[in-house]
């Protein structure tokens, strides 16, 4: 699979590692060079330093032939924009993004974007695991 990961955040770096180890082609884009330190040295992926909403940067990353894109930068608006560019301009088959505000879910789903909210996921996880424990007592 040819995969682009926008944002070399801690989540991004972990994703890169997982996909690289299983033999996928991974390109990671970040506008801050220092963020690439999250990756291992000599990471078997392509690192591109640049703004992930810049079309030239995205083209250099090979968005035209990408099978998937995951937007995990720290800013929600940026992620939304990257996802929209990927989905509507370049028709990348699988586009996923991270957004920190759970309330955006409805709007983004309506726009056809696959959103994952770490905050909502964490809350859900706590909630269900506690309920499970209570039931078992």
């Amino acid at each position, binding site marked *: 699979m*040819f995969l682009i990961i926008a944002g070399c955040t801690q989540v991004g770096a972990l994703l890169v*590692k997982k996909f*690289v*180890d*299983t*033999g*996928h*082609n*991974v*390109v990671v884009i970040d506008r801050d060079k220092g963020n690439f330190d999250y990756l*291992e*040295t*000599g*990471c*078997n*992926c*392509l690192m591109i330093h640049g703004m992930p909403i810049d079309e030239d940067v995205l083209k*250099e990353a*090979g968005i035209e032939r990408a099978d998937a894109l995951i937007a995990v930068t720290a800013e929600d608006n940026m992620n939304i924009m990257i996802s929209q560019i990927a989905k509507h301009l370049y028709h990348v088959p699988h586009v996923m993004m991270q957004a920190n505000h759970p309330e955006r879910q409805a709007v983004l789903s309506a726009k056809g974007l696959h959103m994952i909210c770490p905050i909502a996921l964490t809350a859900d996880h706590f909630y269900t695991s506690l309920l499970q424990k209570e039931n078992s007592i």
Partner: protein
Amino acid sequence: MVIEKPVKRIYPMLYFIGIIIVVLGCLQLVPLVVSLIYKERFISSIFLATASFTILVGEGLMAIGYRYRSTKLSFGEGTVVAAGAWLLGTMLCALPYYFSGSCLSFIDSCFDVMSGLTTTGLCLIQDMDHLSNGINMWRQTLTFTGGQGMVVLALTFLTKDQSNAYKMYVGEGKDEKLFPNAVSTARQIWKISIFYLIIGTVVMTFAARSAGLAWDRAFLHGMWVYMSAWSTGGFAPMSQNILYYHSSLFELCAVVFFVIGSLNFALHHAVLSGRVSEIRKNIETITFTISFIILSSLVTVGLMKNNVYPDLLAFLRKGLFHLISGQTTTGFMTVYAKQFYYEWGDIALVAMTIAMLLGGSACSTAGGFKALRIGVIFETFKTEVKKLLLPESRIVEYRIHHIKEMILSDSLIRSSFLIVTAYLVTFTVGTLITLLFGYPLTMAAFESASVTGNVGLSIGVTSTSMPLLLKITYIIMMWLGRLEFMSIFALIAFILKGGLKK
């Protein structure tokens, strides 16, 4: 927390070296098949024994390091794997030469293997005109594998634990990423090579047929010369090299293929995926063309002055053929080695020496400084002069075009200068050592440039009767030139450090 002992680090490295060795063992099955087809019983038995022995050694190494196979290697260790595999691989690949009696001594066998794997093309093999098809196939298999890289070949078989792939890939003197993943890149390199292998074998077979060989011989010779041309190797099945065929068509086809082979794989990839204009814009093709034009005018002047060749056709087929064969670091010859020395004259020989040192493109099968580095160094001089003319406070970013627009960064400049200096030092040391054995300067410089740049044109120094020390020096120089120094220094440092820590 347990701090890992340094000696433990060797296990994962042994595992990866083991994989590469197993692949080299499997490669010996190719000449085994050829020798079986031609009923060369003795040669087949040798290849069966050496192939299984090599595979056995590789499996042993893999078994030793198996538990640690998913350990992360550092950059240095990755390069040590590449260099170590080359060293051990060379010795194992020399076994067929040695036991079949094709080479006089084990060092001669190692010389020939190193010459093949580094795509140099100097040979010490005995009685080449009576060589079996099996051994000839083995020589060309080595060249073809070495051109793309044995690590690159081994990487294509790596399905899991790919996180160390890039570090080993870099260790073999290639750093271009056709795909983000080094394994995909390695596979793409082999796809491009196999694609051209099929086209090239067909074309060269017809060229050899038109030169007058019978069909089956034409096929074998066509395939071998193609494999050698594409890898910019320089081995040919007969001792007269390309002169044997007496055909301008055959020479022309060979030139086309070794020029294609000397181009960057990234350029191939760009062109094959539709970006044809890249050929015109690329800094490497521009550098190569300009330097070739300058050097060819030098060779012209040199040859004209001595009145070496009677007419234009002869000049093209001898003068330019050797210049382009030298600069692409191929090493096909259509004259006898000594003719360079006795006939060509100093100007042409100096131009040839420079051409051989400059070499082809980076990340190709060619050797030498590489056009990319020459381009970078030239651009650096240009920008430094430009900076002098601009106001001091102005900050300008300079770019070069190589596949994409690249910033002429300090790290790029530094690595270019570093490697070029290393090549120059190797060349100088090689020349000096050759001089010490009593060869004249032009000969020493020519042969030394040929060895350093992995070219394979010979002026007559390389022969079975040359001193043992010189043979070893040349083996090391070829190895250094092919792996571009750093990984070998890492290997040496690793061995010394490992020894000291105990």
